[in-house]
Each structure stands twice: as C-alpha cells, then as structure tokens.
C-alpha cells in the first residue's frame, strides 16, 4: 500500500544523507500514480500534488525523522479536506413540500437511488411521493412502480407522453392535499452533451421550485467524471452528489475530482442493489479507499 511504498522510497533516499526537494518529487510521483490509478482526474491530481508539495515543504518534512509518514499524513488531510465537510443530508422545507430531483448519466443508479431515499425517509416517518419522469427508457415507469410497491411508497406517473416539468407540477398539486413531506423525482439518464435533454432538465427547474438537484455518479467512472459534473452543474445547477455502486471494488477517485471541481457535497453513497443499501458519506473512509 501507499504507506509501505513511500516508506521504502524514503528509506532508500535517507541512505544518501540529507533529503532534498528532488527526493520529495520522487515521492510525490508515487502519490500521483496512486491517485491516477484510482481514477482521480489528471488535472485534479496535478493541483493536488502541487498543494501537497507546498504543504510538505512548509512543514519542514525534509528534516523529519519519518518523512514518508509525514507525506502520507498531509496527503490524507488534503484528501479529507477536499472530500470533506460535515455529513450533509437533504435540507427539508418547513412551509411546503420538499422536492428533490435525481439526475445523471445513463445507468448510474438514479431510479434505484430514488427508491432508496424514499425508504430512508419513510423510516423517519416522512410521507413520500416518488415521481416517474423518465418518459423514454423502456419500462422505466414500471421499474419505479415496482420499487415503490416494495416499500409501500406511492409512485406518481402521467405516462410517457407528458413533459417532465408538467409531471412534477401535477405531482405537487396531487401531493399537497395528501400531506406529502417529500417528492422525489426520477429523471431519464442523459448525456451532459445532449442539448435537448439538458434543456428538459432546465425546464423542470424553471417551472418548479426544486430544493435539491442531486447528480448520481457511478463509482467506477473514470476521467470523464469531471466533464459530466461540470456540465450538469453549469447547465442546471447541482446541490449535491450521490456516488453509487461503492459495494464494488472501484477506488472511486471520481468522487474527489467531482467534489473538487463542483464544490458540491456528497450526500449519500449507494452500497448495494437492495433498497436499504444507502449510506451516509464519510470523507475519511473515502480518502483511504482512494489511496488503496
């Protein structure tokens, strides 16, 4: 692992006497490889290494007795700091129905995660309404309905012929007299470069007050994560991120890249296909996962 690798490098370097800045560069190259291997974005890694180097030099690491451990400590702190922040949850509206929408690329886990969030808040005695606004994917509405049935949460649908922004409007009108606390809107997977489909999302927010816009990202996403998150944030504005399929063995470097580039908090993580497999995001756990 990284601790051992850096330990070995520094042991060899110390053998030649005084440590130099060049020695630190050799070490940081190893950190760079680890981060790239974990799918952290190239440019994000570059900035990260630069910051770690500055902090390392500032901390008089070259005079330290265990510089390898010092570097790891700084790397870890820097990772946690970027990923960081307190455990952010969905911010509930006190005087009207709270509406959240899940967006993201095809297959990232939006529909499943909508149901997981519904299950989570139902267990906290909130009244939930799931809204089926994927009007394209074969059996998408059925998928949400089956999931909703499995947890006793109602699914609002207007079929596949109505525009999503109208579906949300109608859902809210339906929800208010029923005392619904939270509306969760499932949207179709789409490419960030599909102008029409990105416009469809903008229309939802132009015609409705949406309290949370959460980007759902697959933990195995590679370098492209930054492009996706950036475009979604730029075009429709995000309030948070959800990282799915963390029950796999993907290191999840995309989380670091996306957090760094958008500054939006990671609110949840998906850790399985079952409806109760939604967890809070812990920056320190993610940091050690990325470092491998």
């Amino acid at each position, binding site marked *: 692992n990284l601790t051992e690798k850096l330990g070995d490098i520094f042991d060899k370097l110390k053998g030649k006497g005084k440590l130099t800045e060049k020695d630190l560069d050799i070490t940081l190259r190893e950190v760079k*490889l680890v981060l*790239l*291997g*974990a*799918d952290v*974005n*190239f*440019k994000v890694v570059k900035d990260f290494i630069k910051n770690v180097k500055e902090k390392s030099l500032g901390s008089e690491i070259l005079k330290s007795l265990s510089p390898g451990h010092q570097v790891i400590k700084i790397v870890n702190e820097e990772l946690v700091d970027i990923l960081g922040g307190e455990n952010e949850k969905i911010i509930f509206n006190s005087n009207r129905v709270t509406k959240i929408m899940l967006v993201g*690329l*095809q*297959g*990232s*886990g939006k529909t499943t995660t909508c149901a997981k969030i519904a299950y989570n808040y139902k267990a906290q005695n909130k009244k939930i309404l799931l809204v089926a606004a994927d009007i*394209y*994917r*074969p*059996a*998408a509405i*059925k*998928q949400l*309905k*089956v*999931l909703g049935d*499995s947890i006793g949460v109602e699914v609002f649908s207007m079929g596949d012929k109505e525009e999503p922004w109208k579906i949300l409007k109608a859902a809210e009108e339906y929800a208010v007299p029923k005392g619904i606390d939270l509306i969760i809107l499932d949207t179709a997977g789409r*490419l*960030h*470069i599909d102008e029409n489909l990105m416009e469809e999302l903008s229309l939802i927010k132009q015609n409705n007050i949406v309290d949370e816009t959460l980007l759902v990202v*697959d*933990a*195995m*996403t*590679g*370098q*492209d*994560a930054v*492009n*996706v998150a950036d475009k979604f944030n730029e075009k429709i504005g995000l309030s948070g991120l959800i990282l799915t*399929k963390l*029950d*796999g*063995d*993907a*290191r999840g*470097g*995309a989380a670091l890249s996306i957090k760094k580039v958008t500054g939006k908090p990671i609110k949840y993580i998906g850790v399985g*296909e079952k409806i109760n497999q939604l967890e809070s995001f812990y920056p320190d756990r993610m940091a050690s996962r990325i470092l491998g």
Partner: protein
Amino acid sequence: ILNFGEIDADTLEELEELFIQSDIGTNITFDLIEKIEKQSILGKLKNSDEVISFLKKEFIKTLEIETREKKSTKPSVTLVVGVNGVGKTTTIGKLAHHLKKGGSKVMMIAGDTFRAAAIEQLEIWAKRTDSVIVKHNEGADSASVVFDGINSGISKNMDFILIDTAGRLHNKVNLMKELEKIKNVIKKANDNIEIETLLVIDSTSGQNGLIQARSFKQVVDIDGIILTKLDGTAKGGIIFPIVSELKVPVVFIGVGEGVDDLRFFDSEDFISALFD
C-alpha cells in the same frame, strides 16, 4: 492539439495528459511515452506528425488481435454479461435488430430475474425487434429460465439466441458463481452449443473496467467485448489495457439508446477518435 514541430517535454506532457484523460491508464501511457522518447533520441521521430502516426500504429497493434474461429452452430447462442447499468439489455435489443435485418430468427431469454422490471424492459425490446422472448416470473431461478429458453430456441429452430443476465459486480462471489451455473446449464441443454460470451463495458469506466474484465474472463471466459456509450465524451481508453492483457477483441460499440445505435468495432476509427 500536438501542433508543435519539435518533440519536447511539453509535447510529451500533452500526450501523457491525453492518454490518461482517455482512461488508457498509467502503465500503457508511460510505456508509450518512453518508446517515443527513445525513438526521438534515435532520430526516428522528428516532429509531432511522426509521433502521432507512430502512436496510431502502436495502438492498432494492441487492438488487432488474433481471434479463434468459432464453429457456427444453429442456434448460435450469445450470453451477455457485465456489471450493473452498462447497457446489456439495450445492447441485446440492438443486436436483435441487427440480426433480424439479416433475415434471421432471433430469440431473447430474460435471464435477469432479479431487478425490478428487467423482464418488462426486455419484452419491449423483443416487441420492437419482432423477436421471440422466453421469460419466467420475476424471482425465478435465472439458470432455469435459460435452460427452458435454450430448449425452446432449439425446438423453434432459432438462428440466434441472446441471453440477458442481471447486472452484477465482479467482486460478488455468489453472483459470479451464478454465471458459471448459467453457462453449465446451456451445455446441459445441448452439449454441441458453442456459447459466445460477450462482456459489456461502459466507456465511462475508469481503471476498474480492467478489473471487471479480468474477473469475468476468469469466471466465464469472455469471447468479445461490447463497449457502450461511446456517444458520450468518454474515450473508452480502458479497452487498451483490457485487450492487451486479456487478448479479447472488441466486437461492437454502442453509440446511443436507439435500436440502430450499434456499430461493428473499427480500430482505426476508434484510434482516430482518441486524438480528436
């Protein structure tokens, strides 16, 4: 990019960035950079045009691999596998459409008996492509649906049988065991059938794509790879480490969500797109 005359440290840095950002991975990237440095020191590469054509040749060498001749059986059976959400079900729809255009009789087997509305999703694709579909109820044993499907496909004189399976993460031992069981059950239905197993890889995947490919190859022996979602901005460079290490060819690419959005893999087109 790469419009310098000379090859210098900046050019190499730009190439490193391009390759890493295409998900080619650090091993292959540094390997290639090293080769370029050597060649340019020997005076064999004098400008960036020569570097690019050198690189394109190296890439082609990696992707064009020998594929063993498979005896064509009737029915020809294709098992489609991969992790969750990569595009297996949709790709089966596209494959069916492509085969039907050629006048073949196509059957789909709804082997995903787990996920909500997976069967309904495949049924819609069967209708769209005028394919026969074999399904049981949700929650049925996947291997038994496949067994029944193969027998039905043989008796109905199908040319092609396409088997949809549930998405599964490769680190889930019991789910990978289920795939082994499915393959065995096909053999049990008819020992003469040669199964073509296609692994679907999402072009947005990072280095985990290589680990997926290794695991699936080890458990069910992969014959080909389908790289989906290339209509996005991801370059799909993960196929370089996959193909070079596992020697499995990329056979198709997915370029959209529609029934026609499937192409045969063309390594030259793919490699040119890498440099765009």
